[in-house]
């Protein structure tokens, strides 16, 4: 069952008042996402707070489909909520909990997703994320697929070549050009982009 199918199943189970089915869907989603959410949170908050923040992320994400969010964007909700909860954590020393599902947070906005939070502590991270996104957006669809498979799924050049209409040699070249472009957009040798 895909993520989106699981969310649809969860919505249906709750609507039917089927607590057992709801519990299974929630368990699968919590189990399926908690590790990666904790890893992402752990890069930004103190170790003793990682579990709390990660739970709040998943709680908000699981609330979102019931608050007007459309099925099919659960992963996107998680990404945005992670950024918001991390920002909340750094902004509020009292660690006020935020449990609002995502759409409600933006109910005053024309764009329901609003702006990505940018707070001071993120600094370079925001810049490098933009570099990663921009380098990717500059590629044509085929080359984006090459990057998806070779870098983000870590397949070998031969495996990528077998799936796409491109040689293994070109897979290497496309991947290297992508890395070089990221480094160009986000120089790491102390030079600023000129």
């Amino acid at each position: 069952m895909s993520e989106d199918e699981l969310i649809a199943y969860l919505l249906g189970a709750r609507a039917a008042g089927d607590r057992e089915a709801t519990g299974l869907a929630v368990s699968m989603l919590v189990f399926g996402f908690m590790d990666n959410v904790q890893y992402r949170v752990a890069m930004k908050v103190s170790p003793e707070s990682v579990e709390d923040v990660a739970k709040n992320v998943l709680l908000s994400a699981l609330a979102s489909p019931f608050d007007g969010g459309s099925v099919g964007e659960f992963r996107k909700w998680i990404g945005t909520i992670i950024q918001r909860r991390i920002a909340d954590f750094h902004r509020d020393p009292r660690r006020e909990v935020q449990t609002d599902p995502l759409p409600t947070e933006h109910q005053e906005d024309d764009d329901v997703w609003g702006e990505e939070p940018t707070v001071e502590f993120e600094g370079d991270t925001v810049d490098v994320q933009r570099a990663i996104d921009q380098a990717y957006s500059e590629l044509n669809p085929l080359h984006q697929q090459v990057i998806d498979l070779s870098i983000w799924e870590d397949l070998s050049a031969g495996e990528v070549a077998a799936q796409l209409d491109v040689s293994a040699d070109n897979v290497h070249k496309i991947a290297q050009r992508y890395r070089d472009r990221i480094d160009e957009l986000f120089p790491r040798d102390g030079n600023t982009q000129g």
Partner: protein
Amino acid sequence: MTDVHALLKDYIAAHQGGEEADPNEWLQRVEGRDRAALEALIDTYLARAPMRPWDPEAFRNSGLAPFAEQVTTALHGESGAWPALLPQLRDRAALRRGELVERLAAALGAPDKQDKVGFYYHEMEQGLLPSEGVDEKVLTALGSILGQSTEALRRAGQTLLPGAGEASAGPAQAFARQAWPDAAYSDVGVGAASDRDEVFADADTEPDEIDRLFRGG
């Protein structure tokens, strides 16, 4: 300059190999802008990584079952996100429920009514108490104990309420299970007041101030 792309590849291999893959172990190997770059690259990878395949046995051993149970209770209850949130906050404050109830009753000016306060607090954690009926005074007192604002607790009580996805499954269903976040703080016998008859011994008694504070009107 450290090759952050090689470190990313190494991280992905570890993550996909099913190893414990705390990114901080890799981030410790770099600093400055290299660290920022590696952090963003790992985050980009994790944002795209497939969800962990379902494994019932691994789930049982993961320690995540109580949280999943609390979220499920919230989804089928009338108290919004309180069933998932209040145990977490109580754990964070290292408060046994009996201690919390004692302090809550005192803050409400009813130290002699701990059983009734405990009964209602139990209903909040179990998703049985309609959140809209809980008076601001209760949330302010509870927030002061748990380090939260009245508004944050109010918002939590309004999250996940039935309506968008279902009619409420009803209290009996939600009451069928209980979940505690940490056995060390799960003294069910203190303040749980699960036997309603003990708390409301005299059925003819008029609702008092505590009833009004938790159930409205």
